[in-house]
């Protein structure tokens, strides 16, 4: 499989103090690591693409480490995660699906034994396309306070023959979470769901 060619990396960190209600004692932080890579399958239909997933593992790990570093360096503060991809117009949605395994593997590797599935989304789009990356609790998908999302995008990416890869980590619940459901304190942590 071809080598991963990286054009650009972007790190975005949001720190949310309030959203019109009481100011949070500990602000919520959301961080995104974005990487713009060349799409080796752009412009043609290629049947065998799955081998590229393994090639993406080192980049995934680098992005997951950069996210933890951007959040202060301690993986224990990470409570939510998500991932996504935007495929440039000369590629297909299936190329974005190549990110599921390496993106998920990288975050689990860095965060210890996170049990929940990593929420994800993907689309085909042009430069500047925005992607709402879904976020859920790292150990129990049903924790309602941690259902969240982070909008990401880069003005000049993805070009037609590129893929924009995204990983997102968050440090807590929505800043004024108050619609009930399973709480983080009630997680059993056996099946990744509750």
């Amino acid at each position, binding site marked *: 499989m071809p080598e991963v*060619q*990286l*054009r*650009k*990396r*972007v*790190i*975005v*960190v*949001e*720190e*949310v*103090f*309030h*959203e*019109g209600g009481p100011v949070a004692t500990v602000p919520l932080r959301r961080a995104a690591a974005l990487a713009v890579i060349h799409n080796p399958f752009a412009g043609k239909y290629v049947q065998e693409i799955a081998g590229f997933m393994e090639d993406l593992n080192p980049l995934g790990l680098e992005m997951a480490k950069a996210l933890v570093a951007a959040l202060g360096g301690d993986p224990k503060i990470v409570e939510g995660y998500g991932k996504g991809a935007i495929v440039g117009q000369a590629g297909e949605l299936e190329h974005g699906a190549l990110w599921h395994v390496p993106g998920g593997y990288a975050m689990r590797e860095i965060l210890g034994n996170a049990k929940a599935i990593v929420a994800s989304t993907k689309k085909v789009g042009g430069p500047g396309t*925005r992607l709402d990356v879904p976020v859920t609790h790292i150990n129990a998908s049903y924790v309602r306070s941690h259902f969240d999302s982070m*909008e990401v*995008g*880069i*003005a000049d990416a993805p070009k037609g023959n590129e893929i924009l890869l995204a990983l997102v980590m968050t440090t807590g619940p929505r800043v004024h979470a108050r619609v009930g459901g399973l709480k983080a304190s009630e997680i059993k942590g056996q099946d990744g769901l509750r």
Partner: protein
Amino acid sequence: MKAKIRKIVTFVEETRTEMGKPVNPPTRRAAAAAVIENPFAGNYVEDLTELMEIGEQLGALLTERAIAALGIPGTSAESYGKAAAVGEDGELEHAAAILHPKLGTPVRKTLGKGAALIPSSKKRGGPGVAVDIPLGHKDAAFVRSHFDGMEIRVNDAPRANEILVAIAVTDSGRPLPRVGGLTKDQIKGEDGLR
């Protein structure tokens, strides 16, 4: 702090290749943005002193956040820029009050020198509006390799009664500059221009 800050977002962009050609060392830009309450939203107020003082505070805070995100001392910064987007219940003059009278002094104090004008832009817009922060060399405005811009967006800001204030700092110019003009090693640094 006079400013009532709802949220702070930082962005770091690192360009590794351009048109397949390596950028060595990679060019890096950072922006730090604060979403603040606009104390004058919805009314015409003659005296904008409060916003000027908020501008002074944000000048220090956001510059520190931007260089921290780049991981460099202030003195290693090469170019800078500033911008504000006012929510729909505010006026463009509110952005001017934040950006122009007092914001620059703490920026220059943090970065050292800064003889050049800090290039700026302002607009009124809704949540998610794209803000193009102009960039220029901090000691000599005519350094052509450092004429640049950085687009940022915060999807949920500015709300109608808010202002998004951003400062961008780089440790480099454009990725592969080759249109001539004054170069950074030719800076005299006396008049802020050359």
